[in-house]
């Protein structure tokens, strides 16, 4: 085996937008708030017996909300990083399960931008770089719109130079 010298990859340099944790928190808070309203309705309108059930449900909601609205967005913001070189695009993402993914720009097939309602409200954008493999798509999430536009332009410029059918 012609194993080369040991190689490690340093983490990519660029963080997502400063507004990313806020957007993620709001996105996570909406379903939990719906659940909380449902519980209030259950307690106030439908049935206020079974005190232990109400207390348990309320505790689960409070803990779940604290984890997914406060802890997870901050954790994700600490983990998420991205970087682009003329040869490759490289990201780090996740929180409990963390992924580092690298793909060569010569094999890029499409570059998509996605803006959800919340993203539009806060001026964010998500860039997805797909390759010929369904397992090889690289997602750079929660970028400022201006940064996203620059990234897309940069990627399409480099990708256009490459030839071949990218498989």
């Amino acid at each position: 085996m012609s194993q080369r010298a040991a190689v490690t990859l340093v983490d990519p340099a660029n963080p997502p937008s400063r507004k990313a944790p806020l957007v993620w928190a709001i996105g996570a808070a909406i379903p939990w708030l719906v659940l909380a309203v449902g519980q209030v309705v259950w307690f106030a309108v439908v049935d206020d017996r079974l005190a232990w059930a109400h207390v348990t449900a309320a505790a689960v909601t409070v803990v779940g909300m604290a984890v997914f609205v406060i802890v997870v967005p901050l954790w994700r913001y600490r983990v998420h990083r991205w970087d682009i070189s003329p040869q490759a695009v490289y990201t780090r993402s996740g929180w409990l399960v963390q992924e580092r993914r690298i793909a060569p720009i010569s094999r890029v097939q499409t570059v998509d931008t996605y803006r959800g309602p919340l993203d539009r409200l806060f001026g964010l954008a998500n860039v997805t770089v797909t390759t010929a493999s369904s397992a090889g798509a690289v997602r750079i999430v929660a970028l400022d719109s201006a940064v996203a536009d620059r990234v897309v332009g940069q990627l399409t410029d480099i990708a256009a130079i490459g030839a071949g059918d990218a498989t």
Partner: protein
Amino acid sequence: MLLVHPVHEVLRQIPLLVGAVVVGSATGNSWWTVAIVALTIAFGVLRWFTTTYRIETDEVQLRTGVLQRKVVSLPRNRIRSVQTDARLLHQLLGLTVLRVSTGQQVRGDTEFALDAVRVEEVPRLRSILLADSLAAADQAEAQAPGRQLARWQLSWLRYSPLSFTGLAMILAAVGVTYQAGLGAILEHSRLAESGRDAAQRFGVVASVAVFGVVVVLASVGLSVLRSLVTFGNLTLRRDAEVLHLQHGLLRKREHTFDMRRLRGGTLRQPLLVRLLGGARLDAVMTGVAGAGEASLLLPPCPVRTAESVLTDLIADVNTVSGPVRGHGPAATRRRWTRGLVFPVVVAAGLVLAAAFVAVPPWAWIAVAALALTCALLAADRVRALGHRVDDRWLVARAGSLERRRDCIAAEGIIGWTVRQTFFQRRAGVATLIAATAAGVKHYQVIDVPAELSWSIAGTASPWVADSEWARS
């Protein structure tokens, strides 16, 4: 051709025909039956008249549909493989179904299938359809005649009783019987009565045992029969850059693979097949689905045959059968903890239960047997786990119940992922995932030491080692 459609239409509409016969006999007017049979046949004939195909310079078109017109068109440079598939009736009439695949997942309607073309026309159609990709290969073929890589042997049948296909078929048959409402009829039949009498005479244990033996024997018989019918007469032939696979006794199938799209192969050894020294071989190709029958090159056969065929295809003997590098103590520990968590939890539950109620002795024996099985599986997993990498091939081996050795061409890898769960980070290991456009699209190297993961990626893909983030 004009015969196949009506007959298959009649066969497909059997439930309708049964209904027609019932209506006919119930109303006492057998014209109902005749009318419905005639309509079905007429529909089949119409299907033939309304189906046309056209081969143009840059695309092929198939127009079908009696009431709903449908046009499927494929760009010719996207055609990846051409398969033929002849059922019994087709074979009797010298016909075959020709399927064109672009490697995209297609379901029923959008599939490009020419139902019933003459067998003699297939080579011509195939060379026209694959003209772009096989032109060079045809010339080479003219110079050097094809070489046979493998041929089905009767002894391969010894691996087939060890699969669950027979059992699955029995369960499916039982399900269909009950759904059709025949279950109730059976329960009151004389056969069931005599069965119940026999059960009462011999006792419950004996009759359950007999029933079990009968089911096992039937399942084994069906598995062997299915294997014989599906894979009998299999031949794998290589003509320079084209791979021809032919199999089937009653239903003849033929696949043509373009060797230039081959990105490796997977040797799969389910536990029971492995115990008898067997293996099956799947091709890893772009444009061919990664799992199931589409990518199958060899059904369970002696491991030496599978290895020699794969060696012939990828021309690297070490990749196919060379030793692999183990993943170290952390990965070993993870295999053991994963294997033993379940029996330990069960045993703890049993100990807890024993504190309150009397636990029968067989329960302890069962837990001990479970623990032993899990321990053996964990040990086998540890032994299997490993990888091997050079600048041309990535090899990943893993698994016990379903052991697989994936051999992936380094040049076909178009992306790398290093994934770490919370527990993997604590153990200092990572799962390395190679993304490719071929086969099942992602191939995993499980629980490699974290510091080694990017070295493996860098060895197979120089662009990783040369990237601006690499540090050695």
